[in-house]
């Protein structure tokens, strides 16, 4: 742990809980002045929470930090910046309607008596951009007219422009081209020689190996490894991010009911970040889709369902012509259901009664005649679902917003059970749900599969997928990079993989894999 450089930041036994969930568990981290320290971990390992605490965005539940030997407990982001701690987050904190120059110096605009000194503003901005070789970006351009990569660079330039001792970069290269990344690395190396400590979060292991001095690996909210970067190769990094206890043994809750009848085939689908994805899901199958956040999993499901318009590719259902759905209602009439990732934002009608939430998708075809609601039928169906899914509520009239997360999710599930679909697209079906409700959802998925439904399950929780799925596809950079089968699964006509491959380790390796560049060109375009 000791390095020649003095310790700049010392994080001692930091823990953070959100409600009953522990996100960070006694984390220790030491950052030396003048080092680039990479922070690695799978989805939900706690990386973003840890750096948010360091940057003063949220306070720790327990634990303390010192900065250059002084006790460091920033009240907010401003306090942290004042002490020289800067963070560049994944989501951009820039204002698209303001100019580049204004964004660069938003909280320290040069002014006299409240009137902005335009010339100084632009001169300073020019200097900050030039330092980054961004000579071609005009300082008076509204930021919204720049691409996402340039915006990211400007956000970084804005952080670098301020005096800082510790710089935190949360996935800075996700939106950058290779050339832009190189410029950034050159700059980071320069900052290093000035004694600035840098915390660098990235999913690109090759980058980490190339530029970082030390690496700390987080797993389930704990720092499991901290040491010089050259002691670990990419393989070992992935292994340490993966929970070795989660292996093929966990298969009891999942009796396979896979058949060899295809339920839905997706062919050469491209949409947004998703590039040329093809797969088939079979009746009775629970097909998992693993991958890092941002790998295109949600976009894939949305494109299949017609929520976003596909650029290329098609969805083929048995005995139906190939389709490219333009609207979710088309997909729903063809027997496809989708559970959205964020049930509060686009799943539930929060202030509405459980009853109307459950009947929403089916009221016009099942619970009405000539446009009039058949109240008794609707009530009966809602009561049945509440009973069947064990939704804890005061009655079917209770507003959905008063329910717990698990019960809310059951309400949305219930909506599609009433409507009845053949293919269920489930985006993070157990996110933010307590253990008991999660178990119930898993059992529900199992019983759906047993009745011959095909389920496509996206989850950031790899161990969950290993537990409940029959087969797992791994996405990275918008493409499928791996496919693994549960060892005992039969019937799909393909030989099962070796038992040892049904592991988190193999999934993580594929998830961190850089997709091949040439396939970034949508291949389906020609056929459409």
């Amino acid at each position, binding site marked *: 742990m000791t390095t020649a450089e003095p310790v700049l930041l010392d994080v001692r036994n930091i823990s953070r809980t959100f409600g009953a969930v522990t996100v960070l568990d006694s984390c220790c981290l030491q950052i030396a002045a003048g080092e680039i320290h990479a922070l690695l971990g799978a989805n939900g390992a706690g990386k973003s929470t840890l750096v948010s605490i360091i940057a003063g965005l949220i306070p720790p539940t327990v634990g303390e930090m010192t900065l250059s030997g002084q006790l460091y407990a920033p009240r907010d982001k401003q306090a942290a910046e004042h002490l020289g701690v800067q963070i560049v987050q994944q989501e951009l904190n820039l204002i698209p309607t303001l100019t580049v120059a204004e964004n660069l110096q938003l909280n320290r605009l040069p002014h006299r008596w409240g009137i902005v000194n335009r010339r100084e503003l632009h001169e300073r901005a020019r200097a900050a951009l030039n330092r980054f070789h961004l000579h071609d970006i005009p300082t008076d351009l509204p930021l919204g007219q720049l691409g996402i990569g340039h915006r990211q660079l400007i956000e970084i330039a804005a952080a670098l422009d301020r005096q800082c001792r510790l710089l935190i970069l949360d996935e800075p290269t996700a939106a950058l081209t290779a050339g832009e990344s190189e410029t950034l690395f050159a700059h980071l190396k320069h900052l290093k020689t000035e004694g600035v400590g840098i915390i660098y979060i990235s999913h690109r292991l090759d980058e980490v190996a190339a530029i970082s001095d030390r690496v700390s690996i987080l797993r389930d909210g704990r720092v499991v490894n901290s040491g010089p970067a050259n002691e670990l190769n990419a393989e070992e990094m992935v292994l340490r991010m993966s929970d070795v206890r989660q292996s093929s043994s966990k298969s009891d809750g999942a009796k396979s009911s896979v058949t060899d009848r295809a339920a839905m085939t997706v062919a050469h689908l491209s949409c947004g970040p998703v590039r040329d994805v093809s797969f088939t899901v079979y009746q009775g199958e629970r097909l998992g889709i693993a991958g890092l956040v941002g790998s295109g999993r949600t976009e894939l499901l949305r494109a299949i369902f017609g929520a976003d318009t596909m650029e290329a590719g098609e969805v083929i259902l048995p005995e139906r012509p190939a389709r490219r759905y333009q609207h979710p209602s088309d*997909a729903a009439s063809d027997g496809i259901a989708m559970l959205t990732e964020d049930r509060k934002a*686009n799943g539930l009608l929060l202030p*509405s009664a459980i009853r109307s939430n459950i009947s929403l*998708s089916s009221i016009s075809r099942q619970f009405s005649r000539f*446009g009039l609601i058949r109240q008794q039928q609707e009530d009966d169906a809602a009561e049945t679902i509440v009973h069947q899914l064990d939704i804890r509520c005061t009655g079917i009239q209770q507003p959905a917003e008063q329910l717990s997360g698990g019960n809310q999710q059951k309400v949305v599930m219930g909506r599609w059970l009433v409507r009845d679909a053949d293919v269920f697209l489930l985006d993070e079906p157990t996110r933010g749900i307590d253990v008991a409700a999660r178990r119930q959802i898993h059992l529900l998925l199992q019983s759906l599969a047993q009745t011959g439904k095909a389920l496509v399950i996206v989850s950031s929780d790899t161990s969950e997928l290993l537990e409940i799925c029959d087969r797992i596809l791994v996405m990275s950079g918008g493409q499928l990079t791996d496919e693994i089968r549960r060892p005992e699964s039969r019937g799909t006509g393909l030989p099962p993989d070796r038992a040892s491959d049904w592991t988190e380790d193999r999934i993580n390796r594929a998830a961190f894999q850089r997709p091949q560049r040439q396939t970034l060109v949508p291949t389906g375009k020609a056929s459409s």
Partner: protein
Amino acid sequence: MKRSLVQYTGLMGVLLLLIIIFSLRSENFLRIATLITIANQIPDLTLVAVGMTLVLIVGGIDLAVGSVLALSSAVMGVLMVKTGWSVWPAGMAAILTGLTCGLCSGFVSVGFRIPSFIVTLGMLEIARGITKLVTNSQTQYIGSAVEFIGEPLPVILLSPAFLVAAAAVVAGQFLLSRTVFGRYCVAIGTNSEAVRMAGIRTAPPAIAVFAVSGFLCGLAGIAQTARLSSADPNAAVGLELSAIAACVIGGTSLNGGRGSVISSFLGVLIISVLQTGLAQLGVSDANKQITTGAVIIVAVMLDAIRTRRVHRK
């Protein structure tokens, strides 16, 4: 059913309170004549408020109602005065005029995803302009051919216009609470993206509410023409604000997803009782406006407090 009655008690209470205050202050207030005056004044505002309620519930707003009413009235007046049409076909033409305007607003706003505030603001100007064109900016005096619509019928002492408005209130409430269309309207106003992701097309109902609003503006145009015995090109200026006020007093949310046609009707009654009562007391126009404004704000304040309390539970 009991629960839905409870939600009206607050508004009924306010209405009763106003009636009691005015009865105590003015001995002329609590008379059949006053009630008839009020009943015959409100059909146009009531009809417009029913449509406005539906539009507000899907999360839109219809600022063009006053102008569309005036245009419908003008079409009716011109057809009867200049072309010699009889009252029924001219009335049909008025209704069609309103419906067309509403459909246009709905199509443009929903189809091109332009906020309905802006589209109907444009429609407000356009409809008023066309009104002035077709009438040559002159009031079209029709006379007794239409007056019967606004005059009290024997025995029941209510005018046909009032009966139509009352029927619209009942029909509107039925549409909202008992039909799939009404359910979709509330759902779209609550969270239109969630409705889309539930596999439902949101555009048809979202356009239809504007058509309904336009249709009711056409009816209101007939009612107003009957009351004034003529078509006035400058009629119903600012009516949209009274209609919105009535809806808001009735607890309809300007953010969509919440509202009731009956509550809006109670809002109309509160506004007109207030205005008739204040007029009888001889309150000046200036003070009448101040009082009406204050009542609107207080009503919404009370509603906001009530909603917050429900949310906390």
